[in-house]
């Protein structure tokens, strides 16, 4: 399919409305990124999203856009509360896949001597890969229901972390409207033994150092300083979320037929937001999102424990605090100004992060003056970024920005590129220690498989839909 794409400025591209599209497409990308994008199917997916009923504003893609299934990864779309739809494929299987960033009072020099032992201990203490779990965390059926409604707060109550952690989590770690009755027995079963696990693929646990500060004032409020040790956790709702999505897609396929919604791709199946199917999905999705918040909260507690054991120091000294925790696969009810009118919209972010500005009611109290922190992981060989939300994002992208680097190589191509390389050895020689459950995962996750996240955040900053605060360099990475 050949698409007409019009360049608006250095970082914005319009896909004019054609055929069944109900709105235009808006893609944030550099000219170099766009040249690559024209060769794959992600832009076509932007057009497909633009065909869905009740879409408000353009179908958007952030600069980390790549070919997903149904929606593109890096996709943002908002739907009207009465005319619009909710699409489980617009959230994805890994509901509330997200990133959490922990700060510390440690400097990298203090950690270097124990880094090898630390990464081994993290790999041991935080289950990753298939079938691994902590035998000391087994949920009863009743407890799992609590996880689904209370999210991170449940974990804190069970002793995983402290109440102050909740102040630094999107939605305070629990999305409203969760109804465990909307979650199937199968999803519950898949979730029960997977709480407190990292999973595999692109999920990771990373010990980092603050390499550069770009916005000292914001960094100070976030508690970041050069040379400081930080920890990132990237995981989501595990099998529970995948099953909720799969169950909902089946329901939505028949719902779309029943409501006469034409689908350019079955994975975009959806139901009117006013329908019982939509309510059912959103209630189940909130459960999965809360499971993911609890998951990252529990892993945080194990990270703290591991640091304490290895360094022989307590939290009063280490001060491993939560900077923030963001969702990047989610659909949310939000109020936005559209053409001067306040409207209640269901904003889908699939591989996109909320990026609310300073002064926004939903931005945590601690960050009212700088905007909501936005956590953008790169690849394991380069760096990650910390940004904050902006008024530009709220105005133009329903308060959304990118979520990561975005893949450029398929897993197959990445493996081929890694052939003949000792990926783990090469990273170690550059001071990055990697532990992984599967060797294949490491080859698939090589730096070359991803866009340079520096290019991605540069586009975001140029477009004004995010403001760069700091760059973090990996020291040790645990992969599934």
């Amino acid at each position, binding site marked *: 399919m050949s698409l007409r794409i019009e360049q608006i400025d250095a970082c914005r591209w319009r896909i004019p409305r054609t055929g069944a599209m109900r709105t235009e497409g808006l893609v944030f990308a550099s000219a170099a990124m766009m040249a690559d994008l024209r060769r794959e199917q992600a832009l076509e997916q932007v057009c497909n999203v633009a065909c869905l009923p009740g879409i408000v504003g353009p179908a958007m893609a952030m600069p980390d856009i790549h070919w997903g*299934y*149904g929606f593109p990864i890096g996709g943002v779309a908002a739907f009207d509360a009465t005319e619009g739809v909710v699409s489980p*494929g617009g959230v994805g299987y890994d509901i509330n896949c997200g990133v959490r960033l922990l700060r510390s009072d440690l400097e990298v020099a203090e950690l270097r001597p124990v880094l090898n032992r630390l990464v081994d201990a993290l790999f041991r203490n935080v289950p990753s890969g298939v079938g691994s779990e902590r035998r000391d965390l087994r949920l009863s059926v009743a407890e799992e229901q609590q996880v689904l409604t209370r999210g991170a707060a449940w974990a804190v109550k069970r002793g995983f972390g402290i109440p102050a952690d909740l102040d630094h989590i999107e939605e305070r770690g629990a999305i409203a409207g969760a109804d465990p009755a909307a979650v199937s027995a199968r999803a519950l079963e898949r979730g029960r033994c997977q709480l407190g696990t990292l999973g595999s693929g692109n999920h990771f646990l990373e010990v980092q150092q603050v390499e550069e500060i770009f916005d000292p004032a914001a960094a100070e409020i976030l508690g970041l300083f050069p040379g400081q040790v930080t920890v990132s956790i990237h995981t989501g709702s595990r099998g529970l979320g995948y099953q909720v999505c799969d169950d909902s897609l089946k329901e939505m396929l028949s719902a779309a037929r029943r409501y006469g919604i034409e689908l350019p*791709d*079955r994975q975009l199946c959806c139901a009117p937001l006013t329908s019982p199917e939509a309510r059912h999905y959103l209630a189940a999705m909130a459960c999965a999102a809360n499971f993911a918040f609890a998951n990252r909260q529990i892993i945080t507690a194990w990270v703290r424990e591991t640091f304490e054991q290895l360094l022989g120091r307590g939290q009063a000294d280490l001060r491993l605090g939560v900077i923030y925790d963001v969702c990047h696969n989610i659909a949310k009810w939000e109020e936005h100004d559209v053409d001067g009118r306040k409207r209640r919209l269901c904003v889908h972010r699939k591989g996109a992060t909320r990026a609310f500005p300073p002064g926004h009611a939903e931005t945590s109290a601690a960050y009212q003056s700088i905007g909501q922190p936005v956590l953008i992981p790169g690849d394991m060989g380069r760096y990650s970024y910390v940004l904050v939300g902006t008024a530009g994002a709220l105005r133009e992208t329903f308060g959304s920005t990118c979520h990561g680097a975005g893949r450029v190589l*398929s897993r197959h191509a990445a493996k081929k590129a890694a052939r003949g390389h000792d990926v783990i050895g090469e990273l170690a020689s550059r001071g990055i220690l990697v532990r992984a459950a599967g060797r294949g995962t490491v080859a698939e996750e090589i730096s070359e498989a991803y866009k340079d996240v520096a290019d991605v955040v540069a586009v975001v900053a140029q477009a004004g839909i995010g403001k760069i605060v700091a760059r973090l360099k990996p020291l040790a990475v645990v992969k599934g």
Partner: protein
Amino acid sequence: MTSPAGHRLIPHTADMGIEAWAGGLEALFVEAGQGLRQMLVGTAPVYAQRTLTVSLTAGDRAELLVAWLNELLFHFEVDGLVPAAFRVDRLDDTCLQAEIGGELFRPERHPLHHQVKAVTYHQLILERRRHGWFARVYVDL
């Protein structure tokens, strides 16, 4: 499609796909199942030491194929059943009854190639072609 029945894994930027082909629909479902098995644990031999009977329904045959593969995935993840052999007992437009044979997952015997989150409906194809049936599904990794 060089042989009358077969399957292969195909690349996708972030994920992966399975293509399967066969003379008949039942054999197509078996081939797709073998494709998923290959994606999960590779091509090392797996034996049908235990069996499981499943009964599935879906909106049409293509959706039934997705349901079938997700069923295999569910039993792999929850029961640790590494699929090895399949027998389709009944298959019509919306309903499938089949037996899955396999062995229990042991990391040392079944080197995990990919952890599959789910089989998707994205660009799903199940159609009759000149020499038989053809299917393509993409999975989320």
